[in-house]
């Protein structure tokens, strides 16, 4: 119990979200990741244009993640008190930014395969 094991962490997450929702979210995250890897392998290169659009969504993802977390936890930006708070908040923003960028890139690649021809 002194050790934080992976199983412990899973148990805690199951409790936070409920078993169904948690594993549904894990599944969605896994599907998006697999789809991302799939389009990378399929296209055999990163499309600069799609990547640019995906990057443009990053601030939105970061802000959305922070707003969501603050709302979920009855907190406000003014509650950020020390370095560890900033680290957690930046982590949330970073995860939101990267997550949305991956999703946008993958969605573009799946919806418009080869859509690169117009630009680069």
């Amino acid at each position: 119990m002194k050790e934080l094991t992976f199983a412990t962490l899973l148990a805690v997450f199951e409790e936070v979200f409920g078993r169904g929702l948690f594993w549904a979210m894990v599944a969605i995250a896994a599907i998006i990741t697999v789809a991302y890897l799939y389009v990378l392998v399929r296209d055999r290169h990163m499309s600069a244009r799609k990547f640019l659009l995906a990057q443009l969504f990053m601030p939105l993802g970061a802000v959305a993640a922070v707003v969501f977390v603050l709302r979920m936890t009855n907190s406000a930006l003014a509650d950020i008190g020390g370095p560890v708070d900033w680290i957690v908040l930046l982590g949330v923003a970073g995860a939101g930014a990267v997550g949305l960028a991956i999703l946008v890139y993958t969605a573009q690649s799946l919806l418009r395969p080869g859509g690169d021809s117009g630009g680069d």
Partner: protein
Amino acid sequence: MDEFMKGATSRRGFLGLAAGGAAALAVAGPGTARAEPVRTSAKIVILGAGAAGTAMANRLTERLEGASITIVDGRQQHWYQPGFTLVAAGLKPASYTLSDTGDWLSDGVKWVAEHAAAIDPDAQIVTTASGSRLDYDYLVVATGLSLDWDAVEGFSLDMVGQNGIGALYAGPEQAEATWRAMDAFTDKGGVALFGRPATEMKCAGAPLKYTFLTDDYLRRKGRRDASQVIYAAHGKSLFSVPVVDEKAKLIFDERGFDVRWNHVLTGIDAGAKTAHYRVPESRALAADGTVTVTPEREVKIGFDFTNVIPPQRAPQVVRESGLSWADRWVGQGWIEVDPGTLRHRRYPNVFGVGDINGVPKGKTAASVKWQVPVVEDHLVAELDGREGSAIYNGYTSCPMITKIGRAMLIEFDYENRLTPSFPGVIAPLEELWISWLMKEIALKPTYNAMLRGKV
């Protein structure tokens, strides 16, 4: 599409965040290596199916094979008590703290849904309210404590929610009624009066938390300037751990709280909206060597809102069992266990877990998390013909909310040493958002996992 994307990514972010928070509480608790179950035919009776009893029963079913494990508790509802402060602050509904006792007990546990009426540690028999007799080889006392509402003269629980009277310790409904009273009070402002009993109590941080939360609402609603926040401390300190006490005093000062020392609540006059206190005799030594004696006196303080916390003691069935300390905490009835092993000092086949233990610290759910593996270790080792080695060091944890959105993660042991789970990362005496997150989102899952015997 936009909504979907937002949802997906922010949930991902949230996951990362929750991982950090959950990690904090998940590491609390001494380790017990999972071994092959020990075969035994021992009869084990656990009194009380609260946090301590339930966690204990579920862990023992995992560790033992063939044992008869009986848990005795007449209460159908399980209360997640650390949530009461959040309910009384309007942040969670009463249902957040409610579940069924039976939902938490694993199949190997026999639940006798009755209260215990008598314990005979010499004959090794527990008698239930209906008169059934349960004989045991080992007894784990996990009854929790009794809130002695009758000790507050003029007060009754049906007053809660009216006339500015709250009592968030009483249960989920009363915690919600307390919120209604606090919400109505903070709309207008006035005198808010808080305090704690002079007995040992569960979660000694909660009276302070609730003072901070009420102050926060007054500020949010623009009523703080028109209000007075009074804290009637039962002694000369706000908290038993000196370094935390100093910090709490600093924050009290910053927030402009008016502290009255040595005030022991004796009664409530709901009609006149006054609280009655006894201030014991005090002696002061002047520089010239003269001693001034101030005799005991009665004090009345008027309030527009108050949160009543009564004296707390062992349930009657325990007080009458002969298991209590004879010379310590006289009148409170906490059981005489060794502070390290939690084994009864006079009856070696009796253990205590949770609030009922007569030890100087440890009346919180986080303490239970550390106590359960210790009792488990000694009990299972004995059944296996070995000697247990786990020791409880008094670990107690209190996420001290200082406003909505901030808390201090205070952890300490018997010696009043701070024992931070994340030294150098989460400062115990700093008001932090991450400590708030732990209280708000990570604590309940960790608690539930503990009940299931998982963590």
